[in-house]
């Protein structure tokens, strides 16, 4: 029984990984807490993540063509395996709801302030459900268009911001005390880089299974570069004042004004945030739907998407009382909350597989 018949290519996968990683960092701009050293923290985080995802690639290489849910069941048997899968599914579901509210809070605060949150959230989840319903191939193809557009937008904004760059903002270099910096690095590793754990549900459908490792590392590396560069840009343009804004990257785009001619790019920025948030939520919703279908041995994952999406929207509405709560959660609690899921679970499963010598039969062949 194959729930997903589509096969995805290397290029598309890497591109949607870039979009996925860039996803909510575009809005939340992680690491502004450590001021001018935020980019250092991001680099440490990327380095940490590059080491940790080694576990994921080993796991995928051991069980080619099998998703995380199937691997769990193989390694730990039906009961313990299902329990671990449930933990994983809870994590990606909850992550999806957090990403959804991140982006829709932005929409609600900056674009249509008078519209009730419920309307925005439920309209926002609809395209995600539709895309997930159409299957993995369509998600990847749509994602490619969006990511290519995002990268173009990125280049354009980088170019237009040049006049506001102030390289003095990087000084003083590395004055943050090391423990604080390490903590910021750990936070950065957890958000956004280790969120790529969800690709354990998607990479098994790569058409060249021997390139899984390449896909993971290329995606993570270039995604990391995009994020680090966006943080550096923020520091260059806003400097210390970045802390003062709810959405610093939006504000940094808003102040672009070249000769009274090239201005009001914030509409592009807003469109870009919506697109990239859509991509991230879609990937998470799809993975959750596919995971639940595999967990419950359903014939098809698609009927699960509408209820899952509606639940995701509801949970996202009740996640936080207000935007500030969201920010506090993301910067202070999230990394501790997420690490057991995003790094712990794959590690646990890999150790389990190693101890049990799985998959034994495939090796003999």
């Amino acid at each position: 029984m194959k729930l997903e018949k589509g096969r995805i290519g290397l290029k598309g996968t890497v591109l949607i990984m870039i979009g996925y990683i860039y996803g909510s960092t575009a809005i939340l701009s992680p690491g502004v807490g450590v001021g001018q050293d935020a980019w250092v923290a991001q680099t440490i985080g990327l380095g940490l993540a590059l080491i940790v995802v080694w576990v994921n690639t080993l796991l995928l290489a051991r069980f080619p063509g099998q998703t995380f849910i199937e691997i769990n069941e193989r390694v730990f048997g039906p009961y313990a395996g299902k329990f671990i899968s449930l933990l994983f599914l809870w994590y990606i579901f909850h992550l999806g709801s957090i990403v959804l509210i991140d982006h829709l809070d932005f929409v609600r605060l900056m674009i249509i302030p008078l519209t009730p949150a419920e309307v925005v959230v439920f309209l926002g989840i609809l395209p995600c459900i539709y895309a997930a319903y159409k299957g993995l191939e369509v998600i990847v193809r749509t994602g490619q268009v969006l990511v290519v557009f995002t990268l173009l937008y990125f280049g354009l904004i980088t170019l237009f911001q040049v006049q506001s760059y102030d390289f003095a903002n990087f000084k003083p270099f590395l004055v943050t005390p090391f423990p604080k910096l390490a903590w910021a690095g750990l936070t950065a590793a957890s958000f956004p880089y280790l969120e790529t754990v969800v690709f354990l549900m998607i990479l098994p459908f790569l058409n060249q299974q021997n390139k899984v490792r390449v896909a993971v590392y290329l995606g993570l590396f270039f995604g990391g570069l995009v994020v680090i560069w966006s943080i550096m840009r923020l520091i260059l343009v806003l400097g210390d004042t970045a802390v003062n804004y709810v959405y610093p990257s939006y504000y940094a785009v808003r102040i672009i004004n070249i000769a009274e001619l090239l201005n009001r790019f914030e509409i592009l920025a807003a469109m870009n945030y919506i697109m990239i948030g859509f991509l991230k939520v879609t990937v998470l919703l799809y993975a959750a739907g596919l995971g639940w279908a595999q967990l419950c041995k359903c014939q098809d994952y698609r009927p699960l998407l509408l209820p899952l999406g509606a639940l995701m929207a509801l949970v996202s509405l009740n996640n936080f009382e207000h935007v500030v709560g969201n920010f506090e959660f993301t910067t202070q609690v999230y990394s501790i909350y997420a690490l057991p899921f995003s790094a712990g679970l794959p590690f646990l499963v890999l150790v389990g597989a190693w101890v049990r010598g799985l998959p034994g039969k495939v090796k003999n062949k």
Partner: protein
Amino acid sequence: MVFNKLKEKFKGLWADKKTPPPNQEEKKLLSRSLGKNEKYFRDTFNRCSDVIFRKFEVSVPDPVPVLMVYLDGLSSFIVGESVVRSLMNRYLKEKRRGDEPLAEHARDHLISVPEIKPEKDLGKLVDFVLSGDIILIMDGEPEGLVISSRGWEARSVSEPEAEPLVRGPRDGFTENIRTNTSLIRRRLKTSRLKLESLEIGSITKTAVIITYIDGIVNEKLVAEVRERLARIKTDSILESGYLEQFIEDNPWSLFSQVDVTERPDKVCGNLLEGRVAVLVDNTPFALIVPVLFLQFLQTPEDYYMRPFQASFLRALRLVTLNIALLLPSFYIAITTFHQEMLPTSLLLSIAQARSGVPFPALVEALLMEMAFEIVREAGIRLPSPMGQAVSIVASLVVGQAAVSAGLVSPAMLIVVALTAMASFSLPSSHATEAIRLLRFPIMFLAATLGLFGVMAGLLVILIHLCSLRSFGVPYLSPIAPLTLRDWKDVPVRAPWWAMFTRPRLIGYKEPQRQEFFQMPRPPKRRERKP
């Protein structure tokens, strides 16, 4: 339960429809007696005033009665005349050998017409008469002769009216499928150009030709086209639009997944890229599959112009596509929700213009868009002298008077006019069709949720486009899936010496189309000396 009852009730109805049509008679063969045959034909063509029966005798050397049947107006008069003259010649030199059947003798020695073949089946003979051939039946012979004489009044090759070009060949397809194939064959002088012919429609018996270049085309694609065409069971194909709706991948999509053209040069260009064209008799419009969405933004002229202008025009069409789809929605969204996005002076002038207008922006936009669609439809259906009257009435009354009466703001009039011009600037009416229809739902989204609604609508359209396939090829390729090698022909148009390869997902059987490095360079110094 009610549903089941209804189902029971209608079961009979469906069963009736499934019974095969009654024209599946047994194969009737020609009888040896001319009288019986004549009666059959006269019964078959009863009350058909355009069928001509001509009975005469051939002496070879004994007189044998012969019946000639053909359709007046569909058969060439010259061929008919030559047949009758050669058979009624009293001084036939060639004497028939005793054992040679008369039909064979007449075919090999008497009738001086290039294409001629024997046929026994009565039903087929009737079909031949109906397609304009002359049939000849002789007394005592088990076979009749079919003499190819198709020739009727037809429109001559003229400039295609729906796709005019400034630079490029001026010939377009006609209603005659043979003329059309000859127009293609004249451009592609290779035996690899294949023309597979078939017949669709139990009453119209329309000739349909699948054409492709062997070796370049993907064989699976041809097989798929053949299979989809063979699946059609209908009584009539009057235009290629019928076929198009039968063979589309996703029939419920607003976007057309088949390209339509009446230009032979466009067909040939597409065949050379590895596509398949389907020609249909009695219409100048040929179908091309598979088609990519961005092809609708291209014209054949792009390939004849210099690359810079062509690339500029392609970029321009991308812009006009977005204007045609989004401009009214953006206007509604910005004036309703996001006034801060406009520069203050512009905002003031728009607000001033809108101050007397009694409707919200959405109603205003809907009114004007509907007026525009009505004017457009009226202009197309009317004969051209009246079309001018329509345009005067439309511009004066609907435009000028509506503004001075304060019903709509001048800004909205500009927006609607620009949208209209943008949708006219797209080369293919196939592409504009979907854009024209999608404009309205997006306007509603813009009026209720501002730019977020527009964005959500755009995302849904994008997902839909990404999920479409035209005969297996992703509709948005080469953007999604990303194929950078094909970008030489999509956002820009590279010079011809740089067009090394065919589109990767379509023409991959023979990917290279020309030699590399043919960029014209000045001659080297040594060569320049005489």
